[in-house]
Structure formats: structure tokens, C-alpha cells
């Protein structure tokens, strides 16, 4: 009896040994920092010779009273709720377009994908030029139609939408690749079966293509949502969170608190909020939506 038990133990041990490097890496760079962040959020920020002291939920209380936090949170929610559906819709449209049999399809695919290859900061610089007041591309165009030049990044009303446009532009091409791959997984014979019934293209999209793309859409949506809460580079490159925090997003605010204000305790508390938000999104994906969607 002892021998099989020993060998089973041995197999378990081997299994653990095999995953050990991955576990160590994941723990060191993901889990331990996450846990430390949660712990740090209950301490004050150490300053010179003043060490960190336990202050309970004080950082969170500060956060509740911090108008910039609430603004960043609201901005981020808006940012997610607007850019995600737009990027997905655009990605799907582009994918459907370049999936068809059209001339110059390869060139078109490349063109749609190019924004994704560009580093965010490069993309931001291109858009900075588009948005420049007076002689920026966008303003030159709207002036052709007799409108007055708009200071896109310099007005609180337009700055956040202007950043959203960059995100949509950049993400859509990336998501298009997923949709394109998914579209090519759909057996063409299904469309022939639909053609046999003379179904209109809208009906075919609604009843066949769209449901079959659902797993991809979910995947893309969750990724887009997570990305929307991780945006920081274009804020730094384009507006610095301004004017008057109109474009402050959560991660940008965390960055600012941590590396401009050097308030690591408060930054930790903010990070915990961001982490929780992302965790909720992931939870939604894995436990709720997953069941309702057809997987082939």
C-alpha cells in the first residue's frame, strides 16, 4: 500500500516542481506587490526619518474627500463606457470590410492595423498635431466649413473626448485583428446555407455572424475595459491631466500621487481601488458572462 502512495506523492511533487518557476515569477512580480500595496494603503507615507505608521482607513477617508480622485474616477468610467463600445463597433466594421473580397484588401488591413503598431507616445504626437489650435489638421478642416477653430485639448469640454478619439483610433485596429480571425473561423458554408434562404445581409449579420463572434466580442470587450483603466501614456503625452484635471484618469492620478507628490501611502490606497475595479471586471467576465455565450 505504501508504494503507490509514495509514487503519487512523487507525481504531485514533480508537478509542483514543474510549475515552481512560473509560480515564483508570478508571485514575485504580481501577487506579492499586490498584497504589499494593500498593506501599504493602511500606513502613512514615510518621510525622511519619519517611518510609516499604521493609520487604518485614513487614506481611504482622504480619498473619499478628494475631489480629484472622484473626478479621475468619473473621467475613467466615462472613458471606458464610451471608448469600449466605439472601439468594438469600429473594429467590427473594419473587420467585416476587410474580410470581404475587395481590391487592395491587404493594404487596407495594414492601414487599419498601423495605429496599433505605433508606440502610444508617437501616436499621441501625431494627434497633438491634429488637435493643434488654428493650424492643426482638424481645425483646418473645420475652418474650411466656416466653423471657428476649437482648442481641442485646451478646453475642459473637449479634452477628454479628444483623448477618447485617440484611444478608439488606436485600439480599433488591434481589436480588428481578433474579429478578423474570428470571422475567418466562421465556415463559409454557413453563409451559403443562409443564402439558400435568401436572408438579407443584415439578417445574416444579426442572426449568424454576430452571435458567432460573441466570444471574441466578450474577450475584446474585457480587454478594452481593462485597457481603459490602464491608460496613462497618452494622458502624460497629450494633456498632463489638464486642463484643471479634466483629463485626469485613475492610473494617471496614481502616477502623479506616487511619483510627483511622493505620497506612496495614498498612491497605494488609490491602487487598491484600481485593482478592485479591474478584479470586478475580470470576475464579471469569468463568472457571469461566460455562461451565456456560445462557444464552438
Amino acid at each position, binding site marked *: 500500500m505504501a508504494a503507490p502512495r509514495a509514487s503519487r506523492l512523487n507525481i504531485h511533487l514533480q508537478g509542483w516542481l514543474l510549475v515552481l518557476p512560473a509560480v515564483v515569477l508570478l508571485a514575485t512580480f504580481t501577487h506579492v506587490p499586490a498584497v504589499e500595496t494593500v498593506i501599504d494603503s493602511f500606513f502613512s507615507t514615510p518621510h525622511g526619518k519619519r517611518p510609516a505608521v499604521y493609520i487604518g482607513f485614513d487614506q481611504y477617508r482622504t480619498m473619499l474627500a478628494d475631489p480629484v480622485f472622484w473626478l479621475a474616477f468619473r473621467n475613467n468610467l466615462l472613458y471606458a463606457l464610451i471608448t469600449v463600445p466605439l472601439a468594438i463597433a469600429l473594429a467590427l466594421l473594419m473587420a467585416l470590410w476587410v474580410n470581404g473580397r475587395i481590391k487592395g484588401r491587404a493594404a487596407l488591413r495594414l492601414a487599419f492595423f498601423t495605429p496599433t503598431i505605433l508606440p502610444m507616445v508617437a501616436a499621441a504626437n501625431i494627434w497633438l498635431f491634429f488637435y493643434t489650435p488654428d*493650424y492643426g489638421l482638424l481645425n483646418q478642416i473645420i475652418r474650411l466649413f466656416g466653423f471657428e477653430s476649437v*482648442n481641442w485639448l*485646451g478646453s475642459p469640454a473637449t479634452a477628454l473626448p479628444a483623448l477618447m478619439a485617440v484611444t478608439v483610433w488606436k485600439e480599433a485596429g488591434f481589436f480588428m485583428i481578433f474579429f478578423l480571425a474570428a470571422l475567418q473561423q466562421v465556415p463559409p458554408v454557413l453563409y451559403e446555407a443562409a443564402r439558400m434562404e435568401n436572408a438579407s445581409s443584415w439578417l445574416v449579420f444579426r442572426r449568424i455572424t454576430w452571435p458567432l463572434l460573441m466570444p471574441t466580442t466578450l474577450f475584446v470587450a474585457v480587454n478594452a475595459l481593462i485597457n481603459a483603466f490602464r491608460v496613462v501614456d497618452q494622458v502624460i503625452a497629450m494633456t498632463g491631466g489638464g486642463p484643471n484635471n479634466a483629463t485626469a484618469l485613475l492610473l494617471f492620478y496614481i502616477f502623479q500621487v506616487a511619483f510627483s507628490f511622493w505620497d506612496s501611502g495614498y498612491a497605494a490606497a488609490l491602487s487598491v481601488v484600481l485593482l478592485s475595479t479591474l478584479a470586478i471586471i475580470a470576475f464579471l467576465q469569468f463568472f457571469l458572462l461566460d455562461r451565456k455565450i456560445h462557444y464552438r
Partner: protein
Amino acid sequence: MNRFTRFLTGAALAATVLGGSHASATELTFYYPIAVGGPITKIVDGYAAEFTKAHPDITVKPVYTGSYQDSIVKAMTAAKAGNAPDVAILLSTDMFTLIDNELIEPYDAIATSDADKAWIKAFYPAFMENSQAGGHTWGIPFQRSTIVQYWNKDAFKAAGLDPEKPPKSWDEMVDFGKKLTKRDGSGAVTQWGLEIPSSGFPYWLFQALTTQNGAILANQDGTKVAYTDPKVIEAAQFFADLSGKYQVMPKGIIDWGTTPKDFFEGKTAMMWTTTGNLTNVRTNAKFAFGVAAMPAKARGGSPTGGGNIYIFKNDDKAKLKAALEFARFLSAPERAADWGIATGYVATRPDAWDTDAMKKYTAEFPAAAVARDQLKDAVAELSTHDNQRVTKALNDALQAILTGAKQAKPALDDAQAEATRILTTYQH
């Protein structure tokens, strides 16, 4: 606070590490940011090599650390990891942050000889205001600047103004601005009178207005700010009025980085920006332009800006001594002149302007001396404990005022309340 990075026009400059060929007794790590165009890395490497030649027992390892913001982040995190640089060029306004984190050594503690003491006194007092606190000298001016006004002489001529006379007062500035603002048939503006940038760090340019209006924003110890001084509120109102009431400046936030371009493109006839932009403007302006000291209200003047040399704490006395030696070397008159000519920064000490190289340069290009001449009216850049938070409160208020989201008084009241809350812990 990377105020100069936006007009970084040169090619990407990779950090090159100068390896000492022979083992030396002391090795210094030297962090420096790049905030202007030009072959900065090469120049810095040259200085390091030259220094080692003169001091064979010390090797300097220059490390390019990105923008000012990147550099302070790198220096702070390296210090927290127990791996601080020995010498670093960081913003003069980072002084309180560095002091509060007990990272830097005051110069007066190590510069003890008579020659050393004389050296500390050799710099323009305006630059030293941001380098001293609590009776200690924490930084030595290295790459410093002030705000100056640039004007387009051709545009002045076209508007019927004397192209050799920039505005000397606020009233003149508004008056000239109105004449210089041109509209097309539909009423859209084709040329603005003036641009004062307001993105990123509007407090710095605003500080020129408050200085001219006779206000001082913060005390020397960096523990109190005066955002609600009536003169400050008046200055803020004037800032907003330039685009609102007088309509000589574009509405909303004016981007720091594109302001020089607007000037080159003729979109604005006058602009306020750093002296550090001098070389940039000289290269790109296709028209005759002038550089002048700031206009006056109660007085003239501008805040200073830019970076200081800091020496980081170290238990190794030999290292501190070597660091001091290197700081002295970097700030010597010849180097100050050379650096000023290469970058457009203001040479930091009067005797630098007496060097042959500098004399030749100013004879060719008199505009280079404008910033120097303005130094007599210059004040310390706004700098307090928890500096970035305190200045951000002011930045937010200014942007709210400029975009019309808030009135000047309530906005500055809010900023003052926030700053006071932050600074209370430092008022012992």
C-alpha cells in the same frame, strides 16, 4: 515638470557611459536630464572626460536620466534602493523634496575652505534664492533660465508699430496685442497678439505676472504660499482677461510645446517662453524677431527656472569631497559660458560673461544677454515643501480660471486652502 522636453528637437540621444580605462580610487555616478536640443550627451561626456584628466584619482560616470521628471523619479527610487547617485542635476524646485527625504548634503557642510566659500558666493543671487533654505545652501545653479518675451518685428511693422519697441508695460502689451490681433472676413482670428502658455505648469508663467504685480507667492522656507494675495488674484484676472476681455490671446489652454511653433508660423506676434528657447527661435524664425525683458506693472521681473547641481548624502567622505570637486568643475566660469552658448541657458555667474567665448557670442547675438540683464529683477521660482502638490493646486486653479470654469477669487481660495492643508505639517 519636464518643461523643456517638448521642444526636444534633436535626435534621440542614447546614454553613453564613459568607462574609465584605469582603476580609480573614487568613482562618481552623475545623473543628468536633457531638456533642450543639441548634442548634450556628447558635451556632458566631454566634461566628465576633461574632469578625470585633471583629477586622475576620480572617475565620473555620467548617466542620462531622461526628462527632469524622469530624473527625479530615478534619483529618488535609486536612493530608496540604497543606490543613490553621487551628483545629480535636478530642478531647483525639487530642493524641498530632496531635503524632506534627507537625500542631499548641504554645500556649506562640505565646502569649508575659503576658496569654497567664495565659490558659493560667485553666482547670481537670483539663482541662489532657489538654492538656499533654512540657512543652508543645497544646490549650485547649473542650467538656469528665466522667462522672456519674443516678438515678431515684421508683424509689428505690418500693424503700424515700431518694430524695435516691445511692450514695456501691461497696458502697452494689451494695446499692442489689440493692434496685432488680425481677423479674416468671417471674424476668425488669423494672427493673435500674444500667447502665454498655460499647459502643464502654468504657475511658472503666471509667476511672472504676479511678480510684475508686486506679489511674492511663497516664503523662502517653502512653508507658506500667498495664493489669495489681492495682487495675485488681480494677476490671475489679467491672465484670463487677455483672452476674455481684451481678446488678444487664444481662449482655453495654450500648449507650452506648440507656442514656439505658433510664433514661427505667424499665428502669434508675441510669446512668453523660456530663454532656453532662444536657439530654437533663432534657427526656425523666418522673420526678424526680438527678445526682451518682461513688461512691467508695479515692477518688471520673472521667476527663474531650471536645474541645480545636488550632492547626495554619503558616509564616504572621500566621495563627498570628490563630488564637491566635480560640482566646482561643472560650475566654473569657462564651463558656465560654454554650456550657456551650447544650450541657450543663462550662464550662472557674472564672471562667465567676461570670458572671451561669451563676449564673442553676445557681440554676435545680443539677445543672449537679455535674460542676464533681467536677472536683477528675477525672483525664486515657486518652490515649497511637497512642492508638486502645492504647485498643482495653483495649476488647477489657473486652468479653471483660464477655461472659464471658475472665477479668479474662488479658484484661488480653493488652491490656498489645499496648499495650506498640505503645508501645515511643515510649519513646525
